[in-house]
């Protein structure tokens, strides 16, 4: 099917009054949780999963899309006004953005972030619409051995490349895979300990809510910031002529950095935002302003951040491989609706996927429309009393997890895995590999089974396709890369720019 006509059909679906309403709810909710401390888009989508069972999957995903992009808008608002980046991808925005705000240019910083996000998000979504079908076409030609290899690559890449300690990443991955084993997979009861309630496996919704919501709420409660901060007062964001002139090229360059990195299995948003910042600093006509509030240093990284978010959806929709937390929870949502993610998704759920992509365009536009005038109101949200905020998170986490099966046993699981989420945050085990392990583990086993069925049990069958071999070579390179780096440049100094604030905890150490 032709991309253009599918996309137009998508717009037709997404623009029905009900779906449009969900898009509006999504972007407002997304921005709010992005602004609010302690909440993020991944947690919000997880909390909403059970509630959305009653909805059409299309409407639910349209809302999730709004939350996904909205969360990023909200996140950049707080990094600029407070200098407390909630996510690592907005650390760079905070460097120049907060300096600008302190110098009385908060309105311009917010404007370049918002318009840059719009530009990057729109271009990124267009690239997604263009490339995802191509990736699908390529992916459907792959057999189980290649697909298995690609899944291994995605898991290992996210675990090994993102995060500060590979060892702790793999520990989290192991725990996630173990959780994914629970239940009657492969016809035998594994890790059920004779408990009939475990026979169906651990509900991914319960795990996601536990790790993202309960674990996070408990962790924040244990370390609440005691001295209140000041938000820099801001009026309606706007930009002058010279700001436009200095912003538009960084927007485009940021987009060019962000999208490909987001689309890679282990790209993430940190590397492209950092690259964009460094590039803008080098190309700027005002390099002396960097570190004191240069608008290019907000425009570029913000665009890169949003383009990366769009890029991340490419492997998520085309291959069923999520590479960030929100995408992982959205993938879990597909599974809960009984929709099989993977290369078949475009064929089997074409209308849904295209409505989702169309709603990304709509959401982006809505965000620009809503956020430019409402920035002062969003800043007010930060004064919400935190007892209500975190009590509310626990309240809705409980409600959501309970409503899936209406059994108190799920709440016990919620507490146990919430405690695990707390422990992981305390000891620096990243959450993303865990959740990917839970989601991809069972699918990995499926693909392994299919691949070996083809070769009648011969393990060499795993290498029977050239793509598989290439992917395994990449896997080896990723795993060996740090060792190579150590051989070439012993004691390489860490890039200090990535951690500009003293908000970081103890120094990571690595054995792997």
């Amino acid at each position, binding site marked *: 099917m032709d991309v253009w006509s599918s996309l137009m059909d998508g717009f037709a679906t997404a623009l029905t009054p009900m779906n449009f309403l969900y898009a509006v709810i999504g972007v407002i909710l997304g921005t709010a949780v992005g602004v609010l401390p302690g909440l993020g888009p991944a947690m919000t989508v997880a909390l909403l999963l059970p509630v959305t069972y*009653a909805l059409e999957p299309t409407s639910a995903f349209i809302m999730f899309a709004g939350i996904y992009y909205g969360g990023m808008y909200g996140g950049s608002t*707080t990094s600029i006004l407070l200098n407390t980046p909630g996510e690592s991808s907005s650390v760079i925005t905070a460097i120049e953005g907060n300096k600008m705000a302190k110098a009385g240019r908060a309105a311009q910083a917010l404007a370049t972030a918002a318009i840059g996000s719009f530009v990057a998000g729109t271009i990124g979504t267009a690239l997604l619409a263009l490339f995802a079908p191509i990736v699908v076409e390529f992916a459907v030609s792959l057999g189980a051995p290649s697909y298995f290899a690609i899944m291994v690559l995605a898991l290992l890449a996210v675990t090994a490349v993102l995060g500060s300690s590979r060892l702790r990443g793999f520990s989290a991955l192991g725990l996630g895979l173990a959780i994914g*084993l629970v239940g009657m997979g492969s016809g035998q009861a594994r*890790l059920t300990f004779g408990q009939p309630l475990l026979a169906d496996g651990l509900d991914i919704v319960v795990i996601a809510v536990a790790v993202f919501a309960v674990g996070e*709420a408990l962790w924040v409660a244990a370390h*609440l910031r005691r001295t209140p901060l000041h938000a820099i007062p801001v009026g309606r964001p706007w930009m002058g002529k010279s700001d436009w002139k200095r912003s538009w090229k960084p927007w485009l360059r940021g987009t060019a950095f962000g999208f490909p990195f987001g689309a890679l299995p282990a790209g993430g948003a940190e590397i492209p935002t950092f690259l964009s910042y460094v590039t803008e600093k080098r190309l700027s006509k005002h390099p002396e302003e960097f570190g004191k509030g240069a608008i290019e240093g907000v425009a570029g990284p913000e665009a890169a951040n949003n383009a990366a978010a769009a890029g991340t959806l490419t492997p998520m929709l085309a291959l069923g491989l999520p590479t960030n937390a929100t995408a992982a929870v959205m993938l879990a949502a597909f599974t809960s609706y009984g929709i099989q993610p993977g290369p078949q998704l475009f064929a089997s759920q074409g209308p849904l996927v295209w409505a989702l992509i169309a709603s990304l365009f709509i959401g982006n536009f809505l965000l620009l429309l809503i956020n430019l005038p409402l920035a002062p109101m969003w800043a007010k949200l930060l004064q919400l009393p935190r007892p209500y905020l975190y009590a509310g998170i*626990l*309240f809705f986490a409980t409600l959501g997890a309970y409503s899936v099966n209406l059994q108190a046993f799920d709440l016990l699981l919620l507490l146990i895995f919430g405690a695990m989420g707390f422990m992981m945050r305390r000891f620096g085990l990243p959450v993303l590999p865990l959740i990917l392990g839970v989601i991809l583990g069972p699918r990995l086993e499926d693909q392994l089974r299919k691949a070996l*069925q083809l070769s009648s049990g011969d393990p060499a069958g795993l290498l029977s396709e050239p793509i598989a071999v290439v992917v395994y070579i990449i896997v080896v390179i990723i795993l060996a890369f740090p060792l190579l780096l150590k051989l070439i440049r012993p004691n390489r100094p860490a890039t200090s720019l990535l951690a500009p604030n003293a908000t970081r905890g103890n120094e990571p150490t690595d054995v792997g």
Partner: protein
Amino acid sequence: MSSIASGLKGRAELGVALLLGVAGVVVFVDASRLNITYSQTDPVGPKTLPYIVAGLLIVCAVFLAIDVLRGGKGEAEAGEDIDLAHPADWKTVLPLVGAFVANILLIDWAGWVISGTILFWGSAWALGSRHYVRDALISIGMSVATFYGFYLGLGIPLPAGLLKGIL
């Protein structure tokens, strides 16, 4: 690396290594007692992946223990509302967990409206809110609203418990 404080901190993280190790052993033992029914249609069998996962967990446990003993530390997660400068505040966390457990114990018997009210009010109290009346009104309002919202809006009947017949 010889001070008592860092030694204690290191020991806490050894607990993570222990947990990984225990998880690995449990996965291994559980998998080994599965009956293998070799068949042409399933060359992988139910044991392969558990064995790999068990291996991964145990290897990670060993390396993590070594890393911690050598003075390695996990990087505690930072965030916009998080101040890592002070140690974990158990006076907040434990009452929170208490409110959570109370909800688990009460939900089926007393019903969501009561257990949810206790959960929200207790959590707000644990987190330092001292507006008892305002908190109670918000808690009851949220519980009742979600009860009817789920029932009428989503068709999910949350347990009415003690208030059956009233709600």
